[in-house]
């Protein structure tokens, strides 16, 4: 992990609705992500972790606060000026049954980022077919299956397709939003190993969102713990999980089911 700051979020706030019925999904969150870091974002439902990554990926605008990516401000920019972010930051979503268009062939799904005019402007010319082959091989899929539809694949394979799509535009940052939570327990390790290998191979920075502390402890070097829109605790995973300083973190750790034998 280098010292170069990739994401710098200051006082990020996101409120939905107004007046008495306002919901504060995120409250004054500060966050710094460094190049090469594997940051875990831990929280239960309502913690604001999904809101946070949407704001980082500029899929939503904050009510207050700012986000800077690789030194360039992101907040307040029009969509057409966000090409630099779109190309370098990609997301892998939780449910592979919902994140792939059921009516598109795998080939077209994986190359979709390359069809975005914003991304094309930021990327040197890439041969789409060659890229599909590269990406499918990188995630352990057979290129011969490129013309199949998502429903012809298993859950684990679909998640690999989603990862291949995310890597197609050569991003710098991979945001993984609960990437294995919707997968069967027998395939989770495969996908986690794959993510690990790819992050290493391509020198990526990873932001890994999960409610499962056991996974975050294994995958991430640093982590933040969120509750009700605020960051409760942050630090290296090793010390965070062995010596939590905050009560909520302690509660979370205590709730993790252990192997009672």
């Amino acid at each position: 992990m280098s010292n170069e700051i990739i994401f710098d979020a200051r006082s990020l706030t996101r409120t939905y609705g107004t007046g008495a019925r306002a919901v504060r999904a995120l409250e004054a969150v500060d966050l710094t992500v460094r190049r090469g870091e594997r940051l875990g974002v831990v929280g239960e439902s309502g913690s604001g972790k999904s809101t946070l990554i949407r704001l980082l990926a500029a899929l939503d605008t904050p009510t207050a606060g700012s986000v800077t990516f690789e030194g360039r401000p992101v907040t307040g920019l029009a969509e057409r000026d966000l090409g630099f972010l779109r190309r370098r930051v990609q997301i892998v979503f939780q449910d592979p049954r919902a994140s792939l268009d059921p009516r598109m062939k795998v080939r077209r799904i994986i190359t979709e980022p390359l069809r975005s005019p914003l991304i094309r402007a930021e990327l040197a010319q890439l041969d789409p077919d060659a890229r599909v082959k590269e990406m499918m091989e990188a995630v352990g899929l057979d290129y011969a299956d490129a013309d199949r539809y998502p429903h012809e694949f298993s859950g684990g394979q679909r998640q690999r397709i989603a990862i291949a799509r995310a890597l197609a535009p050569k991003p710098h940052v991979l945001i993984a939003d609960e990437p294995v939570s919707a997968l069967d327990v027998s395939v989770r390790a495969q996908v986690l190993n794959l993510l690990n290998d790819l992050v290493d191979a391509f020198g990526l920075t990873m932001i890994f969102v999960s409610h499962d502390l056991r996974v975050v402890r294994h995958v991430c070097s640093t982590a933040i713990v969120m509750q009700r829109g605020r960051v409760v605790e942050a630090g290296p995973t090793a010390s965070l999980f062995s010596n939590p300083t905050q009560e909520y973190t302690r509660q979370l750790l205590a709730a993790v089911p252990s192997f009672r034998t």
Partner: protein
Amino acid sequence: MRRASLWAGVVLIGFVVVTAVVSRLWSPFDPVMPVGTRLLPPGWPCVLGTDAFGRDVASRLMVGAQGCLWVGIVAVGIAALVGVPLGLLSAGLKGPASEVLLRATDVAQAFPALLLALLLAGAFGGNTVTAMIAIGLAAVPQFLRIARAGALTVLASDFVLAARACGIGRVAIARTHVLPNIAPLVGVQASVTFAMAILAEAALSYLGLGTQPPTPSWGSMLRDAQSVLFVDPLLAVWPGLAIAVAVLGFNLLGDGLRDLLDPRLREVA
């Protein structure tokens, strides 16, 4: 039998389509010119008899199938080509603009096709074309709503979010993701609207606002039959039966398509 609705619908519609196609090339007699004695009962050579003007009922019925299909195609075409884009627009817009569009749709939906047909007939003279346009426009709200509902579901999905995360624009998303995914829904609506259009055209022709004589139309055949109802009741039965077959066929097709779609949408655990 599985998919009974679907196949039954296909068979009935097939029947109508084949009749229409064949009638373009051949019919037992000229549908417009009198052919023999008036009000003949079914027999030979006029298999279904003759009407009050001595025209062959069977030939008129066959040629009437053409009109029935044309009306359906044009009306559904207009309704879909206007309604679906408006529906997509309504789904994509946020805030007051979307509301305005929906309220306008409510108003439009309250406007009966009949009234529209009357207005058009008053302005341009009543004929098959004005009937088709009136029916098509009256069906726009149905397509708008179904396209809007389908689009809202698709737009909420993760794969659209993934596309947005790549910076793909709203129009491109509508074209590559929304349309292919709502196509089945629109197809079902088209089938149901087709049935409605046939009925509507028959009603308009019956009222004299649709297909003008002497061109045969099932609706105008019904009207002609009315004046001789007690003399020759069968004359009303044939076009009525034809309308029923066509409408039933399209409704069954719509039901069958809907059933076909449903299980696919549900994942088997």
